[in-house]
C-alpha cells in the first residue's frame, strides 16, 4: 500500500520516469505523461505514448517488471515505486483527464524553476496508453543519505 506521504507527493506535478529491462537485462528509460494512484492505493496507472515508449511497452509485455521514479521539480522530493504490469489499455476519458490534470501541475512546477512554458506545452502526450501497475515496493528517493530506503 502506498503510504500517505507518498500518496500526497503523487498528487502533485511530479516528473515521472519509467525503467524496465529486456531479456538481456538491458535497461530502458522513458517518460510517463502522468501518474494516478488506484483506489486501494496498491496500484498506479501511468500514461505512455507508444512513439517514445515502444521498447518500454515491449519489455512490460515480456516480463512485467517496472520501476517508476517520481520527483517534484521544485524541491526534489522523490520516491520510487517498484511493481508488476497488470494491464495495458488505451487511455479512456477519465485517464485523459487525469493525464491532463497532471500535465497542468507539472508545467506549473517546471515554470516555477525557470523552464519556459511553451517548451513544456510542446510535448506530445497523446494518444496515450494507460498502464496499470501493481505496486510491490515503495522507496525514498529524495537525494541524500536516506535515498534508497524502503518506505
Amino acid at each position, binding site marked *: 500500500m502506498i503510504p500517505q506521504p507518498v500518496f500526497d507527493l503523487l498528487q502533485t506535478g511530479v*516528473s515521472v*520516469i*519509467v*525503467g*524496465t*529491462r529486456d531479456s*538481456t*537485462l*538491458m*535497461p*530502458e*528509460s*522513458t*517518460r510517463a505523461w502522468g501518474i494516478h494512484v488506484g483506489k486501494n492505493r496498491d496500484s498506479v496507472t501511468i500514461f505512455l*505514448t507508444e*512513439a*517514445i515508449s515502444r521498447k518500454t511497452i515491449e519489455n512490460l509485455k515480456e*516480463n512485467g*517488471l*517496472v*520501476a*517508476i*521514479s517520481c*520527483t517534484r521539480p521544485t524541491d526534489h522530493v*522523490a520516491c*520510487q515505486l*517498484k511493481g508488476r504490469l497488470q494491464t495495458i489499455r488505451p487511455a479512456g476519458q477519465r485517464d485523459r483527464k487525469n493525464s491532463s490534470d497532471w500535465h497542468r501541475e507539472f508545467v506549473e512546477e517546471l515554470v516555477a524553476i525557470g*523552464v519556459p512554458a511553451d*517548451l*513544456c506545452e*510542446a*510535448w*506530445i502526450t497523446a494518444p496515450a496508453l494507460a498502464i496499470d501497475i501493481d505496486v510491490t515496493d515503495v522507496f525514498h*528517493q529524495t*537525494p*541524500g*543519505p536516506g*535515498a*534508497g530506503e524502503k518506505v
Partner: protein
Amino acid sequence: MEDRLLKLEELWPCFQGIIPAALSTCSQDGTPNITFISQVHYVDHTHVAISHQFFNKTHRNVRENPLACAMMLDPRTLQAHRIYLRYQHSESSGPLFDSMSLQLQAIASHAGMTDVFRLRSADVYEVLRIERVDGFTRLPPAMPTDRPSRLFVDQDLESLRLFSERIHRAELLEDLLETTLRLLDDLFGFRHSMILLMDERNTKLFTIASRGYPENGVGSEVGIGEGLIGTVARARRALQLSAIDHSLRYARAVRDRMEAGGGADAVCREIPLPGLPSAAGQIAVPLLTRGRLIGVLAVESAEPLAFMAREDTLLTIVASHLGGCIEQLSRDTEESPQGALAKPQSLRALAAPPRSRSFCFFPQDDCVFVDGEYLIRNVPGRILWRLLTQHRDEGRTEFSNRELRMDSWLGLPEIKDNLECRLILLRKRMEQKCPDIRLVPRGRGRFALETDVAIALSERDT
C-alpha cells in the same frame, strides 16, 4: 528514430546539468531501477561519467550488471535523447575525478553540506548507442552548431594545459628537460625529439636531451646556420619540413661532414647528432626568452605527413613555455641547504663492470677520453678534469656550482655561464660512457662525484 548516427558531442546541451537525466539500471536478478542523476559528464566521444556519492542501488546494480540507459533532455527544446551505456570503471583520483569533485564541493559548500556531498568516485561508462527520441516534442530540433560547446575543451588545449602545469613543477633543469620530452611523446605523440642549447660563446648549439633515438647524442653540436636546426637558430623562427629531400637532412649532413673530414680524430671527437635515418618530416622551433635565443627544440618523424600547421603551433607554444622555464632554472645561484639532498641515482646494472677507468686529458682542445674513447671536450671537459684531479689529489667527493664559477681555469663567462647545462651534459655523457662514475645532484647548486671503480688519470699533448 533518425537514420543518421548521432555523435555524443551533438548532445552537448544535455551535459550541462541544467535538467537532471533519468538513469535506469537493472540488478542481476532482473529488477529494474530508475533514478534521476543531476548530471551526465562528457568524458570523450565514446565515454561519459556519472558521479558516485552514495552507496545506492544504481551503484550496486552496475557492478552486478554493467548495462544502463540514460534519458537526457536538451534544455533548449526539451527534446529527449537516450544513450545506452556499459559501466567500465571507477576513478577516485586523476583529472576527471578532481574536476567532478571540485564541482560537487563548490555546490555542497553553498548549501553547507560539504560533509554530506562528497564524491566517492567518477563512474565511467562506455556509450554503446545514442538515439534521438522522436515523437517527444512538436518543436523542431535545435539548429546544429559548428561549435558544440565551450565546455568541451579541445584535446590539444587540454594537453597544453597539462604540459604547462607539469613542466612548471620541475625544480631542476635536468628534470625539466626530461619531463618536456616525455610529455611531448605522451601528450602530443612526438616520439623523436631533442633539445639543443646555445653554448657560452653563442656560436654553436649542443644537444642536452633527446628522446626516441638509439643513441641519445647528448653533447653533439650544430653550428648556427647549419641544417634545419642551425637555420632556425639563426632566423629565430620555427621551421617545418615535410617530405624532406634526403640531402637536406641535418643528421646525414653532420655525419657526412664528419666522414668527409677524414682522420680518425675528427670522427672520434664528434658526437653524432641524433636523427632518424628515415626522417621524412621535421620541425625545429627556437627557444627564446625576452628575445634572446637560448636553444632549439626539434622533433622528427618517419611519416611524411606527420607534421602540419597544428604540430607547428603546438611546438611553438611548448617552446615558449620551455624557454622561460630553462631560463629560470638555469639561474642556480642559490644553493639548497645540505639537508635537502636529492636521492642519488641508482647505478645502472652492469653485467661485468670494469674495475678501473682510465681518463686521458688533452689540454690542447680540453678533450677528455675514457678508456681510449672520446668522452667530452671544451668547458665540460675542463670541469670533469678539475673534478677528477681534485678527487685524486684531495679525496674530494662533494662539489658546488659556486666553486666552479670561481675557478678561473675553467674559463666560465661571468654572466650566462650555462654551468648547469654543462653539468647535465657531462652527467649524461658519463652515464653513457662510464656509468660506474657518476655526478649525482645533491640539491640545487651542489653535486657529488660517486665512483664504484678505481680512477687513473693521465695527460697528453696530442
